[in-house]
């Protein structure tokens, strides 16, 4: 088991004929993900890596039975692409695109929710269920199947932590990079709830960063739950008012401080570690104690 995606996920790539889209489609196919086709307006009827290309997502969905999509279109068209997928009936939509205007995402994220679809991102590395399906841009070989559910707002920090997990023999059920923007489709809490309902997930790693109140929300939910869980918060030394790369990584108006997040996790009995090395060591210890 896993969350959100597995070996049966049928994937359409929106923006499959672009440079990024093409590169990562090949990598996903090599991993074994079921890429059933792609969409690029005006390129319908052609093929990429032997997969059919459609002009619209609706047509692609009807002809392939796709239930999942991944978006590589430029920022100005990304919100439109998300809506197109959601209205076509795609259930899991991953938006890799970086730099999407906030005012585009506010109505789109709300509409996707209203339709009962699931959006991951934007500005995220995607997600992976090791050994089954990669739906994103992460380096696949550092992941391994196992019991650890992983959710993070950042890309490279995720890779580093996952690499450490795998080297320590701790495989992952699903790893979700939820994205570094202020408005995203799926929150920490959403992922934690899905992981707790997944029988294959027996431990959790949460990697947050400064800005917003998502980590606190997830921490409150974890109070009293007995799953082994560890966390890390990036940006603990970042000065207020400075945006640290991610549009969402900013402490403003006294909201989103690292300390507030650390306190919330500590209150829930979730230790917050300084480095990925310490993070994995602590998780290993906790999993051994809980005998999972």
């Amino acid at each position, binding site marked *: 088991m896993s969350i959100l995606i597995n070996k049966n996920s049928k994937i359409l790539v929106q923006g499959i004929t672009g440079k990024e889209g093409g590169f990562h489609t090949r*990598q996903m196919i090599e991993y074994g993900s079921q890429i059933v086709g792609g969409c690029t307006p005006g390129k319908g009827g052609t093929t990429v890596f032997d997969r059919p290309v459609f002009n619209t997502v609706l047509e692609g969905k009807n002809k392939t039975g796709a239930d999942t999509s991944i978006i590589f279109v430029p*920022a*100005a068209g990304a919100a439109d692409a998300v809506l197109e997928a959601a209205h076509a009936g795609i259930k899991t939509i991953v938006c890799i695109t970086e*730099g*999407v*205007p*906030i*005012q*585009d995402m*506010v*109505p789109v*994220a*709300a*509409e996707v929710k209203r339709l009962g679809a699931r959006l991951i991102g934007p500005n995220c590395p995607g997600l992976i269920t090791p050994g089954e399906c990669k739906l994103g*841009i*992460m*380096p696949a070989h*550092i992941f391994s199947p196992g019991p650890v559910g992983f959710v*993070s*707002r*950042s*890309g*490279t*920090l*995720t*890779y*580093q932590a996952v*690499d450490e997990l795998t080297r320590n023999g701790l495989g992952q059920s699903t790893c979700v990079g939820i994205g*570094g923007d*202020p*408005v995203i489709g799926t929150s920490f809490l959403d992922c934690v709830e899905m992981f707790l309902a997944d029988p294959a997930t027996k431990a959790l790693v949460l*990697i947050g*960063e*400064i*800005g*917003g*109140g*998502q980590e606190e*929300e997830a921490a409150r939910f974890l109070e009293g739950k007995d799953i082994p869980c560890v966390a*890390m918060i*990036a*940006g*603990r*030394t*970042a*000065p207020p008012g*400075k*945006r*640290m*790369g*991610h*549009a*969402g*990584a900013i402490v403003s*108006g*006294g909201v989103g401080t690292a300390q507030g997040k650390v306190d919330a996790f500590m209150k829930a009995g979730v230790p917050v570690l*300084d*480095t*990925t*090395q310490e993070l994995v060591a602590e998780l290993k210890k906790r999993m051994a104690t809980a005998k999972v």
Partner: protein
Amino acid sequence: MIIHEYQGKELMNEVGIPTTKGRVAATPAEAKAIAAEIGKKVAVKAQVHIGGRGKAGGIKLAETPEQAEEAAKAIIGMDIKGLKVNKVLVEECIEIDKEFYLGITLDRDAGTHVIMFSPMGGVDIEEVAVTHPDQIFKCHTHPWLGVQDYEIREMLYKTGLDTKILKQVHMFAKKAFELYRKWDCVLTEINPLAVLKDGRVVAADAKINFDDNATYRHPQLEAMREVAEEDPLERSAKERGLNNYVRLDGEVGIIGNGAGLVMGTLDIVAREGGKPANFLDVGGGANAALVANALGLVLSDPNVKGVLFNIFGGITRGDEVANGIVQGVKQVELKVPLVIRLSGTNEKEGRAILAENGYEVAATMEEAAKKIVALTR
């Protein structure tokens, strides 16, 4: 992107929000002329992108045009918390009866925009939020319908203020939201929203921040950007195509790939007792040109006593990254210690290449942080 008070007031006037009357001046002579035009007591206000200008002496009152000239002479060129004042706003001196707060921003956790009003304006709203949380009234706008009149009324009538005043405030809230939407703002704030002794209500200050992801659809904003006031190193970063550079005040230069990883690097350097000089995320894989560019930028900060490179090879292989670093470093003149930490895909090969070329290589972030902190002590 942020703009000055005078620019914010111009945008507010455009959508029909009344502000205090005045104009911007770059010289004392201009300030004198504007004061003469206004024809009564004026306030001369420093235009800087930082709070607390009043306490720093950046706001002076002047009875006559000559006094306004003197005030402008004192303020222009002044240093406020490290920022040089280039312009002053000369505006009518107002007699305030009451000060309110009106602000619109994104509520990330609610996933939509929120209008906030407080009868306790004129002071830091964050302070009000702590001391009088019941005096901040909020109206969450609909993700696609925006805000309705009744929603603003519901928010305002909770305050118990006089209906006559609330009707005026209602207009400010509606127009401010219009401005916020029109310009892709992430913050539109009027503090104080001043009720004057003569009964008028005006925006006495204007703070507007824009969404950097949306500036492409507002080409007019480029003209409002005042390059001279940006940090010179942050400006230089943009010119080099390095969009994720933030200058800090320490001495350890930091370069890495990925925002989260770089933030994590800053944290661990601080934990080991060092002070980061900057945040620099170079994105994807490191090729020679990118490395040379990033190093050149970080080394141009005179405070930098050493540089830590932290790379996690993902889809880009570690040996390619290492070759990029070796070639990139050759292109700059390196007078301070450099520590490289390389992990991920093909890390062994990568580290071997770096070691062969005589670089300090670390296997873990902890080790790298310890090394660079020791070398910059």
